[in-house]
């Protein structure tokens, strides 16, 4: 589908078809891209605007038709991650920024409450999620990108490397550092005191 979309935009009907194709593709990727931005930026408004920027860049690229896109999902992930990295870098200067609201933090890592009907489990998972989210602040922009793509999207280190334009060795180094910085929180997430263990 993206092969067709990558054709240079023709006038009239071609433009309409391109927009139609783009719109349906955007619907299929939108939620995932937005969640990725939200998890990287930890701010709802910022993530909303970053998602818009990512799709806008994608559309402009497709309209120019400069190159064939083999894997559209990976391609839009790459665009979104780069938009987020730019924003995280410019945040370094925004010392007036506040921490994300607690409800944002729950949304970022808390997971889907529907899959855990038990109230105690929900609270437990939400607490861990909030701690892990707060801890993501300690990671550099690249470490956060690497960790987020692995933790939430379950991507291989090779895929992460191709999304971020890094070799696997560098991805590994970023991941090691990220895990080191999140050691305590991750131990709590995966402690033997699992949800089942707590019930018994």
């Amino acid at each position, binding site marked *: 589908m993206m092969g067709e979309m990558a054709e240079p935009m023709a006038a009239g009907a071609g433009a309409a078809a391109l927009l139609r194709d783009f719109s349906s593709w955007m619907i299929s990727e*939108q939620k995932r891209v937005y969640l990725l931005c939200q998890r990287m930026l930890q701010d709802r408004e910022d993530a909303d605007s970053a998602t818009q920027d990512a799709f806008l860049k994608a559309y402009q690229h497709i309209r120019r038709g400069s190159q064939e896109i083999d894997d559209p999902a990976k391609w839009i992930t790459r665009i979104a991650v780069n938009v987020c990295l730019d924003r995280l870098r410019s945040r370094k200067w925004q010392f007036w920024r506040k921490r994300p609201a607690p409800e944002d933090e729950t949304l970022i890592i808390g997971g889907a409450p529907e899959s855990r009907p038990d109230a105690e489990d929900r609270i437990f998972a939400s607490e861990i999620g909030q701690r892990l989210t707060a801890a993501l602040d300690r990671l550099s922009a690249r470490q956060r990108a690497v960790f987020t793509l692995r*933790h939430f999207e379950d991507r291989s280190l090779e895929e992460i490397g191709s999304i971020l334009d890094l070799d696997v060795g560098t991805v590994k180094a970023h991941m090691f550092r990220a895990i080191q910085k999140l050691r305590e929180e991750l131990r709590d997430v*995966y402690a033997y005191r699992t949800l089942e263990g707590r019930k018994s």
Partner: protein
Amino acid sequence: MTRGHWTEQQFIDSLYGVGPEDGHLNACAECRARHESMIARKRQIASEPEIPFEFLAAQRRAIHRRLDQPDRRNARFLPVLAASLVLVAGFFAMKQPPAPTPAPKAQVSDTQLFADIYALEQSSEPRAAGPVRALFEEN
């Protein structure tokens, strides 16, 4: 098994793709079971939360609105351009010949200064009160 079981940290490293590649999981059923339960835990924690449909629809509308707009990538440089112009204007303003400096006031001699201070000390009321008092004086 001659080697011991994986440590907690090795399990975590492995989940994130940087664990030991010693084949232990293939050989040890206990560690394999632990590893699988940790994968399940990760999926549970990282599962996708619900995003309201209205929010996503509004976001798509915003994207479509922006797609319709002309490319305004250069617009973000306008404030920088304006600031640069102000700086350039400021630079040329500073290069103008300096305004003539006013001639220094005549130096007051030490004798005059002491006389003034002495008179101030001797006065029973502040000098500023003089004109006000004059309003109430007859003649």
